[in-house]
């Protein structure tokens, strides 16, 4: 048995050396560069090309030309050279996330566009993702996983399975720390692109800070968001980005709030509703607070604040909902549903006259209301 063990150890060692040699030094990809079909990179591209085909006919992709042109414009400003190599897919999903595939498919969740308070914040995400593409991080990660797991399996065999779990854990740890290194690299390159484009680099750290605040206010803090599961150490990254941004003179940089607000205006209501439907009211409230602080409060935002209180329904929520709906109504640009919700809350509180007035305003404002019959039924019940 000892000699067999020795043989397998030797074999493992020989292969380990061989597999290490394969990793090679991965250079950044050049604009327009394509991998050969025979390479491992070509295989990764092929797989993602298929995913992209599926994406192209996915009902979750937001196809609005103006919104797409806006996001693309930011990307191309960040780096004109790689602009033609990247296709952006804006996917209708609550929560904060984006991803970059090796073949140039960039997926941006609507939850990110909603949370970005200006162009610069959106640019920080796009720049970070583009950096993953430029530095071939998918390929690096794949080779790291391949080599690490190969080593682990040989190690396990060589030790007769005794240290199998340890080898697996070591492999996992190595892969995760490798991923974190790539995130740092992408942060740095992304920040450089922001600065060179004239976007205020300080907005990058703010994006993280906002996310941390949201997470801390979550009703279920233990249930980490999809984002934090793949991007650990948010605090560390926020601090590093802030430090990097402080190293340069940022006068004359822009954040681009107006164009951002104008472009997403017609989508924001739907996206806020997506977030509200996550039923994490603590988190949603912080998101609303952040948008309000950023000067983005209007009738629509107040309406969703009211909705948050109405649906949460804890101690003083009913009164807070009334306050929010009333403020929304006074703003002059609230959605008609504001009055319907106001009517429901007032009715529950026993204020029939106020409820009646609100329902009637709703029906007058929403001539083609789908729930007209229901609201009319409520009005009858009140008599």
């Amino acid at each position, binding site marked *: 048995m000892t000699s067999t063990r020795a043989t397998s150890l030797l074999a493992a060692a020989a292969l380990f050396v061989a597999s290490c040699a394969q990793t090679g030094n991965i250079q950044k990809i050049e604009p327009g560069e394509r991998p050969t*079909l025979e390479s491992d990179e070509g295989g990764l591209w092929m797989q993602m090309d298929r995913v992209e085909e599926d994406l192209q006919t996915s009902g979750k992709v937001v196809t609005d030309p103006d919104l797409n042109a806006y996001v693309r414009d930011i990307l191309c400003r960040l780096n004109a050279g790689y602009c033609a190599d990247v296709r952006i897919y804006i996917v209708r999903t609550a929560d904060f996330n984006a991803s970059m595939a090796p073949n140039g498919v960039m997926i941006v969740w609507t939850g990110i566009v909603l949370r970005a308070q200006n162009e610069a914040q959106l640019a920080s995400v796009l720049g970070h993702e583009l950096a993953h593409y430029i530095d071939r991080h998918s390929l690096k990660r794949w080779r790291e996983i391949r080599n690490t797991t190969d080593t682990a399996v040989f190690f396990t065999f060589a030790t007769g399975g005794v240290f199998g779990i340890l080898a697996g854990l070591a492999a996992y740890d190595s892969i995760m720390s490798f991923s974190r290194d790539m995130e740092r690299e992408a942060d740095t390159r992304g920040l450089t692109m922001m600065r060179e484009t004239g976007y205020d680099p300080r907005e990058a750290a703010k994006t993280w800070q906002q996310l941390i605040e949201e997470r801390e206010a979550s009703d279920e803090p233990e249930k980490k968001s999809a984002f934090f599961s793949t991007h650990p150490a948010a605090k560390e990254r926020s601090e590093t980005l802030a430090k990097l941004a402080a190293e340069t003179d940022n006068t004359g940089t822009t954040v681009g709030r107006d164009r951002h607000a104008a472009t997403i205006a017609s989508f924001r209501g739907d996206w806020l509703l997506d977030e509200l439907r996550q039923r994490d009211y603590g988190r949603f409230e912080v998101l609303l607070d952040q948008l309000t602080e950023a000067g983005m409060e209007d009738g629509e935002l107040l309406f969703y604040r009211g909705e948050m209180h109405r649906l949460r329904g804890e101690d003083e929520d009913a009164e807070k909902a009334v306050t929010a709906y009333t403020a929304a109504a006074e703003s002059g640009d609230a959605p008609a549903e504001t009055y319907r919700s106001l009517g429901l809350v007032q009715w529950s509180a026993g204020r029939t006259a106020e409820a009646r007035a609100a329902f009637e305003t709703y029906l007058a404002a929403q001539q083609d209301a789908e729930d007209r019959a229901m609201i009319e039924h409520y009005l009858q019940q009140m008599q």
Partner: protein
Amino acid sequence: MKRMRRAERPENRAWSRALAVVAIVLLVGACAQTQSFLTSEDLAQKPANPRVLIMPADVELSELTAAGLQEPNAAWTSTGRSNVDAALDSLLAARNATVVRYDESGGAGSEAETQLLKLHSAVGGTILLHKYFPALALPTKKDKFDWSLGQEATALREPYGADYALFIYLRDSFASDSRKALIVVGALLGVGVQGGTQVGFASLVDLRTGEVIWFNRLVSSAGDLREPELARGATENLLDELPL
């Protein structure tokens, strides 16, 4: 095997999970060769000269790393796909079927057709999962085979003038040098290590009704889709008992 209700459409998320399980199911069944299901009285008498629309074969070839991960290989995939296409043409011709090719250029009506392709991969994966893995058998579908793509599938009938649509899914993997070494090391230690595997499924859809009238699964630890002759053999196995 009466007229059927529509196959359930799995939720998107459930579907990605299902795919992972499908991969496991395919591997677990590594000893079996092919096992097919047939549902239809119509086909008891074979149509004389059926027109068969061949949907784009979903083929992927990859290399198996020592740890068992699959590294997709685009060049092999391209060769394998061509070999399978050629094999399909000649095998169906041998069955007196007229082959019609699906237009992959993305012309008019392609959006609806793409959705059908997606639907089929979901239904096909569901069949694999629930018909070939006894522990996952659905109580309402245990003793029958009544899956369907729904009436929408009939939309393929007119533009192609086809009676049936044939869907092919094939995955072929090959042991890398380090995997081969691990097999040797494993043999020394008395541990079995699986080499490359060929897995796949085929299904035939009646374009008048959208019903999946025939389904077959293939699992093999031999074969090589990169070689025309071996690809033909694999395709022949896959079409085993095709009711045409």
